[in-house]
């Protein structure tokens, strides 16, 4: 080995080490490419954003197409099969149902809540009663059995995440959960790791970005805010979430 090659190898290994440390450290912290205030979204950014919304889970339950799959196992893209194949797109996009129609306590409780089986039966005693998945629901209801959904988004037990505070702050659901309205099967959209949470708390939340993340165009007030660089900053005190 010549001297030059030796030093090349040494520095190369060091550089790879540093790069992979940084990558593993910060992957998942920033997933929605922040669009600087006052500038418009580039075509790539737009394509990425839309790809995220339309992504489907991959063959191993991981969404390769989400664009943000973290290969270090932080759970992004995780998409467990659910006992009932509930089609969010049909309910949200086609039927224009709001998220809080079913997840009704999201704006009054730390806990977003899941619809009671009876809520499903409010409509499904009349509509689509012959679909196999709806039949499952009806059967559960008749047997007075709850449906055991598999949890997709979860923060650890030592984290308090009050949904109500975020809803009142104007954060769109899709900011954290992704465009569930376009997901045939819900997958974990964001890494939900601490850096990801904190980035938004520190750098602030732009309503326009949130609306774009939700898949619709920002309203004029949001656009004005964005032009003026208004971002909603939150507390990043540790005891905000950990107690």
């Amino acid at each position, binding site marked *: 080995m010549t001297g030059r090659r030796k030093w090349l190898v040494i520095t190369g290994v060091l550089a790879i080490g540093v790069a992979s440390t940084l990558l593993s450290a*910060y992957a998942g912290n920033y997933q929605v490419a922040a669009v600087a205030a006052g500038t418009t979204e580039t075509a790539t950014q737009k394509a990425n954003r839309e790809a995220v919304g339309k992504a489907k889970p991959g063959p191993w339950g991981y969404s390769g197409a989400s664009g943000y799959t973290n290969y270090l196992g*932080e759970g992004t893209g995780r998409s467990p099969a659910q006992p009932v194949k509930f089609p969010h797109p049909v309910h949200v996009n086609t039927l224009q149902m709001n998220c809080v129609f079913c997840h009704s306590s999201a704006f009054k409780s730390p806990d977003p809540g899941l619809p009671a089986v009876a809520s499903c039966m409010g409509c499904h005693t009349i509509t689509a009663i012959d679909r196999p998945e709806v039949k499952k629901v009806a059967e559960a209801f008749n047997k007075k059995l709850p449906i055991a959904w598999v949890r997709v988004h979860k923060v650890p037990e030592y984290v308090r995440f009050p949904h109500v505070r975020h809803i009142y702050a104007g954060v769109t659901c899709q900011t954290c959960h992704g465009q569930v309205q376009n997901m045939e099967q819900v997958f974990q959209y964001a*890494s939900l*790791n*601490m*850096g990801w949470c904190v*980035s938004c708390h520190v750098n602030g939340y732009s309503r326009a970005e949130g609306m774009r993340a939700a898949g619709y165009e920002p309203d004029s007030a949001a656009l004005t805010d964005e032009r003026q660089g208004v971002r909603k900053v939150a507390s990043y005190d540790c005891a905000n979430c950990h107690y």
Partner: protein
Amino acid sequence: MATIAYEPKRPNIASANVQLPAVRDYEQVDDEIVATLRPSKAWFLMLMTAIACLGLGVSAFLYQLHQGLGVAGYNPPVMWGVYIVTFVFWIGIGHAGTLISAILFLFRAGFRTTIYRCAEAMTVFAVMTAGLFPIIHLGRPWKFFWLLPYPNWRLLWPQFKSPLVWDVFAISTYLTISTTFLFVGLIPDIAVLRDRETNPTRKRILSFLSFGWRNTEREWRHFARAYLFLAAVSTPLVLSVHSVVSFDFAMAITPGWHTTIFPPYFVAGAIFSGIGMVFTIIIPIRKWFRLQHYVTLNHLDAAAKLCLTTSLIVGCAYMVEFFIAWYGGVQVEQDFFWNRVFGQWWWAAWIMLTCNMILPLSLFSQKLRRNPTWLWILSIFINIGMWFERFVIVVPSLSHEFEPWQWTTYAPTWVDYSILLGSFGWFFMWFLLFVRQLPIIAIAEVKEIVAPRLKRAHAHTPDNADDYEPETPGAHN
């Protein structure tokens, strides 16, 4: 050089002028030191004992890891106990090596030459042992890496104002630098071993470890420079490491900890305990390996003087602590010191005072300084005393703080003791492996003080041949 022996039987040798009269030439050095590397049955037995102790410690630690720290004898608010005591103890031990190899090198103290390798290896292994304890003592040891500054997705960094983070830096720097120092010094010696080795596999390994050292004058020149500067930079490092460790205590407001005297007091104590451990190790080694003509009584005498000096400093520090507690007039502090010496913890305090302050006074006698048996016995007392010094600092302070309602006592359990024993197993395992694999005495440096072969002049005669001790084996001519 003039002979400065006033009396042949009771020589008083300047520390800088310690010679090796019984070592005649370079070949003898090579042969005698390489000869120490043969494993023996006794060595295996000792190694197995060390590994068994280590095994016990490891099992106790695993048990503690599973059950929780509660299996150790903690008695809040005594939240630190045997582990931190042992940590400081080993860190202290780890001070002698670099002191001897670096500081005494800068001071040109000749008696360091034959003992420094041993002391330096001891340092590295002691710091390796010490470094385990802050992790063992953690409530969640698997999270220890949170103390290291590395980029992470929590976007959080260590708290750099904490003395524990200072510790992390001080100890890891110290371990790195002392390991480097040891290894750099070993390179020429490994080259010697390489050139003497006949087994091709071992030769290959040694070749690799010697980095292709060729003994050229160029190599020696840069080596000397690097060695000098490493020594120069290690000198403040040695002083800083135990100062930083003492900050763990001095930065706290706990009575008995909150004193400005701690850094010098700890450094002196560390050197004292380190020399003690050097005696504990080198005296059997010189006997078993028949190296009495390398580590001569003059060497031991000189080291014992250093030991005595540090003992006096430590004793003075104890007295100053008591004086300041009284003179400072802070009642909490006064209560605490009374309780330490005459109250609840009198036994620990008196073990400390006896072993560290009173017994070493015997070293004022040159007869005892030159008595290896006494030095060895004393060194055991010093080891015990220095362990208890740390115990006396850590435990009584915590058990007798500001809040009388929370005064308690402390009793370690078998888990504490097993892990303490395991630490000795760990240390001696490494040390035993070292003594049989690598030269315990620096070959190249010994050669430096041995007279070279000359064509014109007569062979160099030692100046102080009279100081040669009759207990040395081998011919004396």
